[in-house]
């Protein structure tokens, strides 16, 4: 008699891999460490934000135009180009909304 998990693994192997999510650009996978998909707690969610807004906010954090406790320190580690790629990815994966045309 094999342990129960053996049967479970066999069952799992039969599953077809789901469609792969788009590859996250550098840095994007860290956002969700603090920002929840749904608004909860003191940290704002990125859901419902459009890409342009996210990029503008990151610029303002970087320049100091928008005061922050920690995002000013984090934003300085990313270029505009990197931030744009992250914002687009967040929108594609459902954490934000597409920029309005």
């Amino acid at each position, binding site marked *: 008699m094999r*342990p129960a998990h053996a049967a479970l693994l066999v069952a799992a192997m039969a599953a077809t891999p789901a469609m792969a999510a788009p590859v996250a650009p550098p840095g994007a996978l860290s956002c969700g460490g603090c920002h929840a998909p749904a608004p909860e707690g003191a940290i704002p969610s990125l859901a419902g934000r459009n890409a342009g807004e996210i990029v503008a906010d990151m610029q303002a954090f970087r320049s100091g135009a928008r005061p922050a406790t920690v995002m000013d320190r*984090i934003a300085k580690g990313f270029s505009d180009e990197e931030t744009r790629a992250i914002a687009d990815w967040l929108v594609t994966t459902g954490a934000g909304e597409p920029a309005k045309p």
Partner: protein
Amino acid sequence: MAASGAAVLGAPAVLAQAPARVVVVGGGFAGASCARALAGQGFAVALVEANARYVACPFSNGVIAGLREMEAQTFGYAGVEKAGVIHVPRGAVAVDPQAKRVRLDDGAELGYERLVLAPGIDLNFDAIAGYDRAAAELMPHAWKAGAQTVLLRRQLEAMEDGGLVVISAPANPFRCPPGPYERASLIAHYLKTRKPRSKLLILDAKDAFSKQRLFEAAWTALYPGLIEWVSLSFGGKVTEVDPATHTLVTEFGSHKADVANVIPPQRAGAVAQAAGVADASGWCPIDPVSFESRLQSGVHVIGDAAIGGAMPKSAFTANGQAKVCAAAVTELLAGRQPQTPKLINTCYSLVAPDYGISIAGVYRPKDGLLAEVDGAGGTSPLNAPAEVRALEAAYAEAWFGTITHQVFA
């Protein structure tokens, strides 16, 4: 001889005919995050974790200080399983990287295409003379959250007003660099509130520590005369303990504590040694792009066990490394090269229930290690109004809620 021979020759329950594509060992912030991310990519993922419940270290200093209960720290694996991960409730005892097999403590073996080890830390019970597992029952480390956390809290509760609490802090690297000083702060808060004639002494095996200026400024403001920090240069390194008398011995003298919290040196969890992925330092060198071991191909190491370069050993780091590692494993299994990542760390510490401070960093691979991106990161400002400290305390709580929900719910 006959018995061990039979065990070797006898056929253990082998799962060779249907290996999980990825086996993850260790169900903490690193392992559980990585397993979920890989299951989300559609892979068959087995998460090997002996414990049915995970007790989170972040915020456990609040439990020690009587500000939180253990229930708020404790999480099951139902959410992980619901996300498509197979939870294998066993310990991993050996790895054969050539055969690509993990041996479990019931003798069963799991085959894999890629293995991710996230074993966290083991406490080094050979580092301080007299400080072994039995000693930890009298002088708790409370550096793995659980029964030890509760033990330290009970000892503080039982201490008379006017007692001396001693924390022994290790040299770098170790899990949660600001942790001993957050602990000192919150214990000081408890003492100030409940046992105001008491004192707290930190005996440190180093001359500087994380967020030091912020902690020291807060101690002066909130707990004047209560906390004393003794650095390495001033005789802070504890070399020996006597658990029976609660005595800590340094090169400069000895201290008799009413409550002693000994946080010993650490190393990667035992399975890392067994798998041959730990080096002489006790930690695991990795490629900073894929988190693949420098010592064994096909085996990745994430979280506290890994040599993260400039990245501190934190739950935020573990969670971020887990996702990057999962993305790299996804690419490698598809026969593609993983892209060069960037990672972030944000660590909050509470100095008092409504007084939070943080350190943040952005990291990228450089010269084979994870290095800080210049010009980014750093600590909270030294001079900030109370509203900012309160906001950071609220953000700390929100972060814990978000990350535990994401990993375990």
